[in-house]
Structures are given as structure tokens and as C-alpha cells.
């Protein structure tokens, strides 16, 4: 278990207000051989189809999950998505055609958890993210075995969200999770929520669009 440095603990929330209808779960695949116990698969899903948008690196060597997710968003015109599946430990970048296939398999495997499996002619309803070492192939069998376990662990508590924020980390020293409530001017009686997690500690100079 990673320990959070004392100086960083003030940035880790102890409670949160999370958006309705979203569930998160994690599991252990051991993507990086040296990781023997920490969860490294994260699933974030909506209990109903939802609108999705994405911004992606402008680096010309776009990793396989970036390419597949961009294409899915375009083909589905930003609607009908269920969520995202993330692995840490391997970036699935500069991995050629097999890398693209692996990214696609991750998305399809997650789609299957919801029973409604679209045919190959329909884009996946799950976006994909990978982070970690560049230029190595994903251990796809370990990942596909861990995806149903992440689905089985889905929940909406603060602990679920915090565990998810931990599982996407690589060299990060603390999980980055925030949540907030807000209202909109045309119907001020309704309370909305927004929650987000992020990771990143090195190779950080984003230029996304």
C-alpha cells in the first residue's frame, strides 16, 4: 500500500458530494510486474447512457487508447456512452496495430459487463485510458481478467471514488479527487454535483484539444 506523504495529506478529501448515477470500481491486474497488490484498473460508469466529451494530447504519437477513444467519440457524436476504463502501469503507446487492438478489447470487455454488447460495426460505448511505461505491450489477458472484477466492485461511496483516484496513479504521491455541488440560474432549487479525479506527476506539459 502506497503511503501518502504527511505534507500532501491535506489535499486528500475525507468526504465528497458525488454526482447521481455514477459508479466507480477498481481491481488489481498487476499490469506492471513490480505491482503485486495495488489496484491498477479503474472503471467509472454511468447507470444510464450519457453525453461524453474528450480532449486529447496533440503529440503526433498518440497512444492507442487516445486514438480509439477519439474515434469512438466522433462516431457516436458524443452520446450513448457508459463510461471509461483505465489501466495504470503501461501506456499502450507506440505499440502499433496490436496496441490498437488491445485498446479496443479493453473497451469491448467493459461494454460486455453491461450485457448490451453492440456488434463490431458499432463503436464501443466505453472510452479507454492508459498510463505508465511507453513502448511496452499491454498484458491484455491480465487486464481482461480484472475488468469484470472492477465491475463487481462498483459503488458510489467516497471510498469508492478515492480508491479509483488511487488506482489511476503512477508516480503520484497522493490521489487527486475533488467534488462540488452547484446550482443553475434557471432552476435554482435543483442541486447538481460534479466530481473529478486526475493523475499526473511527470511528463506533464499538456497541450490538448
Amino acid at each position: 500500500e502506497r503511503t501518502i506523504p504527511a505534507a500532501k495529506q491535506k489535499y486528500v478529501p475525507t468526504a465528497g458530494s458525488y454526482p447521481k448515477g455514477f459508479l466507480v470500481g477498481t481491481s488489481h491486474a498487476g499490469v506492471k510486474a513490480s505491482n503485486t497488490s495495488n489496484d491498477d484498473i479503474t472503471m467509472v460508469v454511468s447507470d444510464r447512457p450519457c453525453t461524453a466529451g474528450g480532449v486529447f494530447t496533440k503529440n503526433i504519437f498518440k497512444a492507442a487508447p487516445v486514438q480509439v477513444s477519439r474515434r469512438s467519440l466522433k462516431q457516436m457524436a458524443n452520446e450513448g456512452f457508459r463510461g471509461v476504463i483505465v489501466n495504470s502501469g503501461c501506456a499502450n503507446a507506440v505499440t502499433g496495430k496490436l496496441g490498437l487492438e488491445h485498446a479496443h478489447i479493453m473497451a469491448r470487455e467493459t461494454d460486455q459487463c453491461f450485457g448490451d454488447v453492440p456488434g463490431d460495426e458499432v463503436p464501443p460505448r466505453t472510452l479507454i485510458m492508459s498510463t505508465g511505461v511507453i513502448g511496452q505491450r499491454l498484458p491484455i489477458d491480465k487486464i481482461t481478467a480484472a475488468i469484470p472484477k472492477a465491475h463487481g466492485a462498483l459503488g458510489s461511496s467516497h471510498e469508492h471514488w478515492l480508491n479509483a483516484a488511487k488506482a489511476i496513479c503512477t508516480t503520484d504521491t497522493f490521489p487527486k479527487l475533488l467534488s462540488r455541488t452547484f446550482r443553475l440560474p434557471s432552476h435554482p432549487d435543483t442541486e447538481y454535483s460534479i466530481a473529478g479525479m486526475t493523475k499526473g506527476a511527470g511528463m506533464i506539459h499538456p497541450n490538448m484539444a
Partner: protein
Amino acid sequence: TLLGIICTDVKIAPSAVDSMLRYATNRTFNCISIDGDTSTNDTVTLFANGAAAPEGIQPLNLPPSLKPAPEAKNAASPSSPVQKDPPNRDTQAFTAVLSSFMTDLAKLVVRDGEGATKFVTIRVRSDISYFVAKRAAVSIARSALVKTALYGKDANWGRILCAIGYAPSIMHDTGLPIIRSIGEGHARLVEPERMSVSFVPADGSEELKLVVRGEPEVVDEGRAKEILEMEDLEILVRLDDGPAPEGRERKTQHEAVFWTCDFSHEYVTINGDYRT
């Protein structure tokens, strides 16, 4: 690599979600730098399921007459995600929430920079454009020598000016609309003798002026050290690059804010042995 996953129970039209996310990204995640390397995998996604929205309510949308701004124009005029009329009140309110939320998330990433001991805000003011100010800020944030000086608590303002001086777009990107609009005679936008640099302490105390209009101040090294001992620091740069006569107060100022960290031995240790 930067990854971000944002979920909300607001209802957003599929045609509007990318524009909202892009707009917020330009002033948040696209304004951070830890080591100057852009990853192959950087991705931020926004999911909106409408689960909290009252029945029958219309999804947040951009008015149909409006198209998302092209990227170059967005950079030049970042105060609005669209070109013409303002979007409706709910869209505007949500975009503000999203931008503020993503700013806080982006700052957390910088606070966790590999080996970082400092959180540095770089604020650059230009009379000409946000674009010019941002390029100067980026150049400072990417400078390894500025970042090692910050780690060493050395008030080395010369390195800050040096980094601004080679920011390529300031000197050479004259083909961009924002530069062309001020005329050929102003292709060189930044005059060293007009520039000022200060450290702004995180505790709200008075700024420490290092250079004023190109002339070095007599720096109180003890005070500089005190400021650099703090975890949070702001570097304030006034380019003073407008056509107005020297000394006159500018009516409009464009401000770019960039967040970065220092550069330590630990960064090398982590990244000298990453694959294994």
C-alpha cells in the same frame, strides 16, 4: 501523463460538450507544466448523465447560431468559448463551474510534480494580448534553469528575463492574426527596457520587486530568501508592451496564468529508472 475524468449529473447536449470541455481546458490543464514534456496519452474526459436534472428540462447547449471557436482564435480571445452572442445563463454558469473545478484539479497535479518542493504561479500581463502573455509564461515555466534556481531558493531573476527573451512566438510568430493586427513596425513586441519582474509572497505581504522597467532593483536577499522558503510562490511579470507612452496606466490588460513547480534532484532519481 495527465489523465482526468470528470462526471456531472447535469444534462448537456452532445453537440455542446466538447466545446465546453475545450474552453475549460485552455485555461486550466493546458496551463500547467511540470517538466515540459507532452505525453502521448494526455486525456481529459467529461461525462454528463443528466441524472439530477428535473424532468423535461432542456440540456445545456450552445445557441444554434454559434460555432465553437477555432483554436487559434480561442487562444487570442479566451474570455468566451464562442464567437458571437453570449450563451444562455445556465450554459455560462456551468462553464464557469467547470473551469473553476478544472483549475483546482490542474493545480493538484502541479502540487504533486515529481520531486517538486514548490508550487509556482506565473502571472504575465500584456497590453497587447493574452496570447503574448501566455507564450512568455510558458517559456518561464519550461526553463530548467529557472526551476532549479527556485529549488535552490536563489532569486535569480536574470534567468526569468532570459526565458522570456527567447520565447519564440513573441519574436517570430508574426503570421498570427493577433500579431499582424498591430502592424509590421511592432513585430518585436517585448522591449527589455520596459519589462518588470516581481516575486509575490503567498502570505499576502508586499511584492518583492526584482526588476522595474528593465532596471534591476537592489534586492533584499534576506527577504528574497524568506519568500523562496515558502511552498507557494508567484512570479509576476509586467511586459508593458503596449503602444501607450511609458508610465501611463493601461486601460486593458491581458493576463495569462500558468502553474509550475521547481526542479529537484529527486526528479532525476525518479526518471532515471522508470521502466523497471
